[in-house]
């Protein structure tokens, strides 16, 4: 069983959005205006707060804690045939686990994913000289492993010719510190090639330059740079296809969905549709940013993705 993208719709205005009603909506905690707004669009639906806890390796559904190997049972009680995933307030890992559970529930056939783009980014925050209030982030360690989506790598070993090639493919956003932290903690031990995926077209023309220029130092042989790939910032299907193509010629790779949420959704679908059963050995690399920065203002375009099962 694989997930397929039925369609991708993007709306400028909030009137007459084809959001499903009388169904279940999985969501997270809203941190800003668009999160609040996204949840408000679902007042007619049964809201379920879902969170993957990276420190304790368990899942919290509406406040109740479940082990990673048990939480899927909670989904057995779902009778609706279509459900909503409110992606603005959920992290890509939350979405990954929700979709993983739903995969096994044959009665659910339609999945609607809702995502609201930021209207504008407050770029001042990326200056080292200006910092907003933010809490000291309660990160576990950088890039904690995610159960079910973590692969074991081995460093290059010169003794025999069978080289354990692990590559890195990263969907980039604006903050270069996230990619930097991947490379610092690895310090050249693991990845033999690095492929960055740039959001182009971005949410606005020219935003891609910010992504590229802020990550320039990583596009060099020192960081085993391969070549630039491009994906539309709000096209999860294309992100998914890029990974599919990428996997055709790679044995082992890690995916870092540290760019836009729609791209991350494409990564999640890829991981759920492909695993070692069909010869693809790939894992995820995610840093669970928990900072409460109000980086983005306002409510931008509304994306609605429909997934079906095949």
């Amino acid at each position: 069983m694989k997930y397929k993208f039925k369609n991708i719709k993007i709306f400028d205005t909030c009137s007459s959005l084809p959001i499903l009603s009388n169904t279940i909506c999985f969501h997270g905690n809203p941190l800003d205006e668009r999160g609040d707004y996204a949840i408000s669009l679902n007042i007619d639906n049964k809201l379920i707060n879902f969170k993957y806890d990276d420190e304790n390796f368990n899942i919290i559904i509406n406040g109740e804690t479940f082990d990673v190997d048990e939480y899927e049972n909670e989904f057995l009680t779902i009778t609706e045939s279509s459900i909503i995933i409110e992606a603005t307030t959920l992290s890509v890992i939350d979405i990954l686990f929700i979709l993983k559970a739903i995969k096994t529930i044959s009665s659910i056939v339609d999945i609607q994913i809702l995502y609201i783009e930021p209207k504008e980014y407050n770029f001042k925050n990326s200056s080292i000289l200006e910092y907003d209030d933010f809490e000291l982030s309660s990160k576990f360690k950088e890039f904690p492993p995610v159960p079910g989506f973590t692969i074991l790598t081995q460093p290059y070993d010169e003794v025999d010719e069978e080289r354990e090639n692990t590559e890195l493919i990263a969907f980039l956003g604006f903050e270069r510190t996230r990619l930097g932290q991947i490379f610092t903690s690895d310090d050249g031990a693991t990845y033999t090639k690095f492929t960055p995926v740039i959001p182009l077209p971005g949410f606005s023309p020219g935003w891609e330059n910010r992504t590229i220029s802020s990550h320039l130092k990583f596009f060099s042989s020192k960081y085993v740079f391969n070549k630039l790939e491009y994906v539309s910032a709000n096209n999860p299907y294309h992100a998914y296809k890029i990974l599919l193509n990428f996997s055709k010629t790679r044995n082992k790779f890690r995916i870092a969905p540290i760019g836009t949420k729609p791209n991350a959704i494409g990564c999640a679908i890829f991981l759920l549709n492909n695993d070692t059963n069909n010869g693809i050995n790939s894992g995820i690399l995610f840093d669970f940013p928990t900072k409460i920065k109000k980086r983005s203002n306002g409510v931008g375009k509304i994306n609605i993705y429909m997934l079906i099962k095949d």
Partner: protein
Amino acid sequence: MAEKLSSIFKKNRAEEFPDDLWNTFILPIEYEQWNLLENDKGVHIRGGRGTGKTMFLKYHCFPTQLSNERISIDENDIKQIGIYWRPDTHFVQLINDKYLKDKWLSTFNTYVGLSLIIKFSKFLQKLLISNYTNTDTKNKLKELKITSILKEELNCEENTLYTELHKHCNGLLYKLQNWLHSPQKDMPLAIDGKASLYYIIDSIKNEEILEGTTFHIFIDEFENLTNDQQMIINGWMKHGEKPLLYSIAYKKYAEISINTSSEENTQRRNDHRIIDIVDDVYAKDERSFKIFASEIIASKLQVFLNNKDIIPLSDRKQLTSRRTEPYKKQMLDITKTIFPEKDYATISSDMINDNTIFTKVKKNIEHALKDKNSPLSADDFICINNASASLVNSILLFRTKTNPSKLLKTFNQYKEHPSSRSKVILEYKELISNNIVAAILYLYTYYSQRICPIYSGFNRFCMMSKNNIRHLLELCYQSFIELESTIEDFKQFHETLPIVPLELQLKAAKFCSKQELETISELGPYGQELQKIANRLGRIFHLKQRIKTQSKPENIHFSVETLALDSIDDKIKTLITQAKIWNVLQEYNITKNTPNDIATKEYMLTPMLAPFYTISPRKIHKIPFSVDELKIIFLDNDEKFDKFYAKLIKDWKVEDKIEHIQHSLFGDLF
């Protein structure tokens, strides 16, 4: 086609070098004391980022020891064999009791066991293809099949050879990885890591192969294992004995466990030898670091200059020759030539002869004289031939204790009899030498487009690198990049030693400084916070550098009362530890001189940031902070910090409102 000079300096991370370092590793001069393979027990190897810890470890391991570059390897050469293992630090975090409950221990054991068996099998394979002279052993090993017990334990095929075992075990690791996706199922296999490896070694020895050999396992990045996992390894270390010893390597200041699982709650003292890569092995003092660095640079240039004069630095037999004073001096001369330095007196002289700066100095003196209602003329305090004194005069005059007439008298005396041994002249000379750097820096804070010349020269490069070889090589790399951009014809490089002009060195220093600041945000999970803190500290030190009087000058470190620190917010403690681990701050415990002194800890900001903030790279005077002030700097938001900063401007009477640090390029509006 000539390789660019800069490219030779580009590779400066251990992992960018292959595992075989036989001819490339530069042995530290005192290597015999630090040969890791001569230990009878496991050791701790400590080294931060960019200290060469990993290279040092790999030098002692079989890919290097059995290098094909090594023409003949006899029995003595294989009496001690090192095996380097770096766990997959991302993956290994999954093996914990929260996710796996009580299966975690067995999973960890299996993971480590398989990984080490793979390494061991590869070692045997490497032994076969090396220039090891004992062909009998090689022939035996070529055909040697694993025991039936091992076959069963690892579920291998009939007739698996030891030298091929790693292929099978790789498959087992893969199964383990997949099992971890849904661990409610049964484990594909479970082995006792320590025992299995021991058993394999024992079995080999029973075949009269490698009978006299001791194996040293070096586990790198120990700090990235979970606490529970560390305790397991500690147990292996504690009970390790020949022929199988375990050692660990980690970043200095990383908080690691030294307990074994059975002693979880006791306060155990570490009884393993600790080898600090920097403080012990290659930089026990500043001069040692400079010599070592000079050797590295000289050897890289040797490649470039096609010059065979340099002593082979990977050869143990040459260590004695390298310890002679003439040799050391020769090395230092090379780097002093490549990276010439201007002494402070010359810098002062250049400054006095620069119209803009001269005018500023004069203006300052006039200002100070006016403040003191002195009728004296500013010109009297400046003399082109006594540049340093003139510059220092301009700051001394602002000090309340300074009497202009007295100073003028002293200055005149000094001009006339510079080598006089009178008390007054000697005191004055001391004043000059203590304040000249401050005076130079103070004046340069007015000219953000210029780079203060004190950041050039090999010695000063070393000062800024603070015994970190990666930083130093980065400075060299950037310097050569600058040099190459100005030279049309590269051919001339291949004949003589390249000399990097001061201006270019300064550009390189400034660039590396900025780059270092930018990189801080990538260091560890608290990188962004560390960068914020480094920036705030840099700004504070820069502010102090702009005080007219420059009393207690040259600040790049602060102090806090030790007792106060003990009860400080946990968050600050964590940040300080992180800052230490990643070399953003260096900690000094200050011993009390008298019982009345309060114990303090001092923290120095990495001097690599000095060029960016136009502050001193030397640890001279500190700024004492209270716990509250520390909290503002470390934790509070910009609004609160800006208030604190404004208060400092007022308290320190710094007059200029505009901050001169280059920052317009950050925070691009786009």
